[in-house]
């Protein structure tokens, strides 16, 4: 029977898209690359594209894609007895060698459990036996793997291109030798970047904090070092990308300019875990762009990185790319621009084919607060950038802010409203008497700060829901202009995200309870249910507030078992500087001594 006739957007579940890879079912290693969210979200993820095309170059391995089926499809699959399958082969993933999840956001964790459930794979690592798939995970959230320690056989810390090849080489030989599960985990535990949670004992102090991590065996490293790719030009990058039939969130070519970020904003986990900065050359990028345009037929190409305008050779690169894209009538999108180096020339390049929307992220409303978070942009920078935009014909800009930041006062919060008002004033000043002045729109989006591991703010107390609500209302009360569209969200999700981002392995119980209570798609408003989550905590005898508290610098953190390359001393120094409202120059101005010197290719100016 065909269950696809009964579900919405069935094209999510069919496979067969352009550039998808079908191999012989007898391929030695079968690998389910799982993204714990729906197809449209997961297919937009660059990491999956890189690993999918990279690892499928191996003759002995077939990587397939798996996404979280939407609830209607889950129901139909359960009714018809269809287990979760790989999109390429339609084979059940419980028969695969590896079931690997990418961890992009904490609120996708319950989807991992519902996917394992749907696949018929034992949820707990301890319940899996010989012949079961190895369940593993990587991605940014794997830097604190502990909340998922009960469910994953191993984690991959850092960038996946090289480490996966090493793991697959070991696996191939292990499979030939017919050894035990334990033996495989033992063998890969020696690979830099592999963390096997069951190989560590964790003890706790009376106050509930972690006492220590003890490796159970001599072959287990005390801390697990992250993996990085050193040469971005020689590492594989896909020359083909799957072109979905149905529209996905980022339905375009993604060209990755560089990894890492020179900035060091103190709230930003990506800014630290992806260090050091490593760029691809303009030559390599232009070559990739041509190949990707030819192989996909996409009508848009997006230059991706954490901060596109910090690419050293941006002028040359964008000029050359524009020659390619304008001839082929392809739109070039430049996301992640900063307000301190946004220029009229750059703006013209974005609009030369089609006008994309403009987003700026001052992050905080007052200069004091921006100094605390080390954003290193000023109000003048922002005003200059929006002036260029308004003069260049743009009528709407988006502004991103955060509330709940360390040391924040009510003045800092009201500053968000004031800064938005100033942008509105600038709009009227520039467009005065002009046609269509009424079309102006400023979107002020305010999210709630979540303290993340491996940032200078990893020890900070997270604001409570009532505190955040009060701040949200203050902003609302201080916005007067109708031109400003103020967006904010109830902060329940942020608070829960904070719990799991800094959680320990005792939270595994909570996740399991939440799964049994029906939690999934927690990143989706229509499914997230805070009360059910609180029930899951209660059943586990765990107080969620414990994880929102401030920590002292000498407390053992659950993620101390991971070494992200940046030293703890650096994070402590940065945190103290934040309290003193002192900024740190970006890596190009002056090396801040984060601990990655030697691996870092950033050249200081002058």
């Amino acid at each position, binding site marked *: 029977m065909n269950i696809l006739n009964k579900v919405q957007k069935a094209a999510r579940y069919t496979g067969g898209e352009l550039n998808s890879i079908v191999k012989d079912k007898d391929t030695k290693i079968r690998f389910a690359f799982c993204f714990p969210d729906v197809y449209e979200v997961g297919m937009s993820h660059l990491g999956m594209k890189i690993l999918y095309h990279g690892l499928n170059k191996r003759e002995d391995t077939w990587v397939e894609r798996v996404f979280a089926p939407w609830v209607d499809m889950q129901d139909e699959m359960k009714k018809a007895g269809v287990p979760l399958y790989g999109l390429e082969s339609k084979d059940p993933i419980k028969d695969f060698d590896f079931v690997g999840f990418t961890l992009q956001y904490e609120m996708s964790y319950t989807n991992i459990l519902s996917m394992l459930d749907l696949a018929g794979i034992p949820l707990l690592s301890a319940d899996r036996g010989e012949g079961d798939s190895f369940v593993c995970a990587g991605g940014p959230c794997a830097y604190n793997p502990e909340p998922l320690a009960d469910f994953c056989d191993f984690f991959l810390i850092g960038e996946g291109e090289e480490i996966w090849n090493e793991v697959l080489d070991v696996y191939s030989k292990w499979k030939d030798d017919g050894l035990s599960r334990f033996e495989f985990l033992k063998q890969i535990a020696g690979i830099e970047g592999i963390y096997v949670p069951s190989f560590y004992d964790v003890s706790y102090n009376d106050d509930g904090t972690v006492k220590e991590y003890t490796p159970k065996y001599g072959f287990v490293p005390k801390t697990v070092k992250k993996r990085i790719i050193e040469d971005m030009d020689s590492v594989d990058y896909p020359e083909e990308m799957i072109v979905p*039939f149905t529209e996905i969130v980022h339905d375009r070519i993604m060209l990755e300019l560089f990894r890492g970020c020179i900035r060091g904003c103190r709230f930003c986990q990506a800014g630290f875990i992806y260090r050091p900065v490593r760029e691809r050359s303009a030559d390599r990028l232009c070559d990739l762009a041509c190949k990707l345009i030819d192989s996909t037929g996409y009508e848009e190409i997006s230059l991706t990185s954490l901060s596109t305008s910090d690419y050293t050779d941006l002028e040359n690169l964008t000029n050359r790319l524009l020659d390619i894209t304008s001839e082929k009538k392809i739109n070039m999108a430049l996301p992640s621009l900063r307000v301190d180096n946004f220029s009229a020339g750059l703006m013209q390049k974005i609009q030369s084919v089609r006008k994309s929307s403009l987003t700026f992220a001052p992050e905080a409303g007052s200069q004091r607060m921006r100094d605390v978070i080390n954003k290193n942009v000023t109000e003048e920078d922002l005003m200059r950038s929006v002036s260029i935009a308004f003069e260049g014909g743009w009528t709407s800009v988006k502004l991103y802010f955060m509330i709940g930041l360390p040391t924040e006062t009510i003045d800092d919060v009201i500053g968000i409203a004031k800064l938005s008002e100033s942008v509105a004033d600038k709009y009227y000043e520039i467009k005065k008497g002009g046609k269509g002045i009424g079309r102006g729109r400023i979107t002020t989006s305010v999210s709630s700060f979540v303290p993340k591991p491996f940032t200078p703010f990893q020890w900070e107390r997270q604001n409570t829901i009532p505190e955040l609500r009060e701040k949200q209302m203050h902003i609302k009360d201080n916005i007067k202009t109708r031109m400003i569209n103020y967006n904010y969200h109830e902060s329940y999700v942020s608070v829960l995200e904070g719990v799991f981002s800094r959680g320990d392995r005792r939270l595994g119980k909570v996740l399991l309870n939440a799964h049994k209570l029906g939690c999934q798609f927690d990143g989706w408003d229509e499914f997230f249910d805070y009360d059910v989550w609180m029930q899951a905590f209660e059943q586990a005898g765990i107080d969620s507030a414990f994880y929102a508290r401030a920590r002292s610098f000498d407390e053992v953190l659950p993620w101390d078992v991971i070494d992200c390359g940046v030293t703890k001393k650096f994070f402590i120094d940065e945190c103290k500087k934040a309290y003193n409202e002192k900024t740190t120059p970006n890596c190009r101005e002056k090396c801040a001594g984060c601990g990655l010197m030697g691996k870092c290719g950033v050249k200081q100016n002058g």
Partner: protein
Amino acid sequence: MKYVSHLDTVRLFGRTMRRAGITMSMSQGFNPRPIMTFANPIGIGISSTSELALIGVDEEISPRDLAITLNEYLPDGFKVLAAKKEFAKSPFTALTFAQYKITVTGDIANPAVILDMPEIIMPKKTKSGVKDTDIKPFIRSIFIEGQTIYATVRCGETNLKPELLVEAIEKYTASHIEEYTTERTALLDENLKDLIEF
């Protein structure tokens, strides 16, 4: 491919043409889209071996070369059967009937008996909402072979969706249809001549 929507199919052809290096005519405006019109876009879940579309091409290329090139680049499941030059703005006015092959599971009585009814009243979607309509005039012919129904029904300006036909069969005959799959097999003019010329 039967789960690819009409809009997705248009986008797919746009990307295919770009990969093939054929310049398409684009619509004007903020979001230029390839110019492509289907004679009668097919519903999601229905497969088809007979679709008719007008594609705007912005360069000199023979219909034969266009078909060959497109087939080289189209993903599996899509195929251009034939191409010809067409300059009329709305070349699909001749479309009058479509032929469907509906394969069913379950008990099926001879569906042709519904044509003996004085009228076949079904809730039909119209521009002004769902209305009880006599669909008998929309059915040109219908017969069954084993578990497969072959039907020729109105298509185009007046249109009968195969789903509604199946519902009518269930309502007016002693059939109990469990599941069915539908394939469109031909687009025809008023004289039942195939609109696709090979």
